């Protein structure tokens, strides 16, 4: 069968994608709870003076950089997959993994679902303010509040969204209070093992999870919402495989760990629809 005989309809595409959806993604439980436990251990060791701050800082930074991905999978229900009995793990990993970033899970989930629903829409995409001509725009933008007018628009349209944001407030306040207590009691460990790593990790996450995959964020057509990309000399695990984040926008319920296999199976569809950056898939491993 040559390529012109291939059925590239959306129905055929979905039939293939469905095969990869639904498994229990234990890897994200390990990364999510593991990074948090390690970070906490480093923080306590730093407070007690058992670990010098210069040695603890890079470990804390790596932990914080791996904080968002497990929570992101939880936001989509991709940790439990189709296992009804394990759904509580989505909640557990989602909340715990974001703790060192001081980021409320409900807020992350509510705004991320709006990002998927309205990707690249300047008036409705909750991540649109990260887009811009330079990656620095995203690295800096994550430390600003999301545009109030977009949040208010969604709050007015959807009471559930408003409730999620309201529910995230006490969590956000609790994180801030905890950090303040720690800063008063142990100023330098809190700065080097919590505040600074979490700030850098938020920038890292926003650049590689939001800016790079969506740049230039100028189209709202299904196959052009995101692009495939890579950086010279940078292995894809260093950017947590966000090089193929575009497939996540086609099928958000495919678990992150299964995306490379799904990518191989879906490559004819990706190429048929001329998705941006698809040429990197020729030598993709």
């Amino acid at each position, binding site marked *: 069968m040559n390529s012109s005989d291939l059925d590239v309809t959306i129905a055929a595409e979905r039939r293939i994608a469905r095969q990869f959806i639904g498994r229990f993604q234990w890897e994200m439980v390990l990364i999510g709870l593991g990074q948090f436990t390690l970070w906490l251990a480093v923080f306590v060791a730093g407070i007690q003076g058992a670990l010098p701050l210069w040695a603890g800082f890079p470990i804390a930074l790596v932990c914080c950089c791996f904080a968002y991905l497990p929570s992101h999978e939880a936001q989509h229900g991709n940790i439990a997959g189709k296992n009804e009995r394990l759904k509580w793990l989505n909640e557990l990993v989602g909340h715990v993994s974001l703790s060192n970033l001081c980021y409320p899970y409900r807020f992350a989930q509510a705004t991320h679902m709006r990002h998927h629903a309205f990707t690249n829409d300047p008036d409705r995409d909750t991540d649109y303010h990260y887009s811009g001509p330079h990656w620095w725009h995203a690295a800096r933008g994550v430390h600003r509040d999301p545009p109030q007018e977009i949040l208010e628009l969604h709050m007015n349209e959807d009471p559930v969204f408003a409730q999620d944001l309201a529910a995230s407030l006490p969590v956000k306040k609790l994180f801030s209070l905890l950090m*303040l207590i720690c800063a008063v009691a142990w100023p330098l460990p809190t700065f080097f093992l919590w505040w600074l790593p979490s700030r850098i990790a938020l920038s890292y996450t926003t650049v590689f999870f939001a800016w790079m995959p969506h740049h230039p964020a100028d189209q709202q057509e299904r196959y052009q919402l995101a692009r495939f990309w890579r950086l010279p000399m940078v292995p894809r695990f260093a950017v947590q495989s966000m090089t193929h984040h575009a497939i996540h926008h086609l099928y958000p319920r495919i678990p992150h760990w299964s995306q490379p296999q799904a990518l191989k199976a879906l490559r004819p569809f990706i190429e048929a629809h001329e998705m941006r950056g698809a040429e990197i898939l020729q030598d993709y491993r």
Partner: protein
Amino acid sequence: MDEWPKRAFALVNSWGKPVFGLVFWGSVGGAFLQEAFPDLKPMTAQAIGGSLGLAAGLIARHRQGWL
């Protein structure tokens, strides 16, 4: 829809930052200053750090971000 989620959200977004800046940088900034200038009194170091933090928090409040 209730108005209180909106109001609470706006309140925390605005006044939380100056308070956080004052306390956080009062402690952290004070500790840094004392490391750099051991002769500085702890209260003086914390007051300098806290003032800078409060100023940064007020700027952040004005510009919606940066803390």
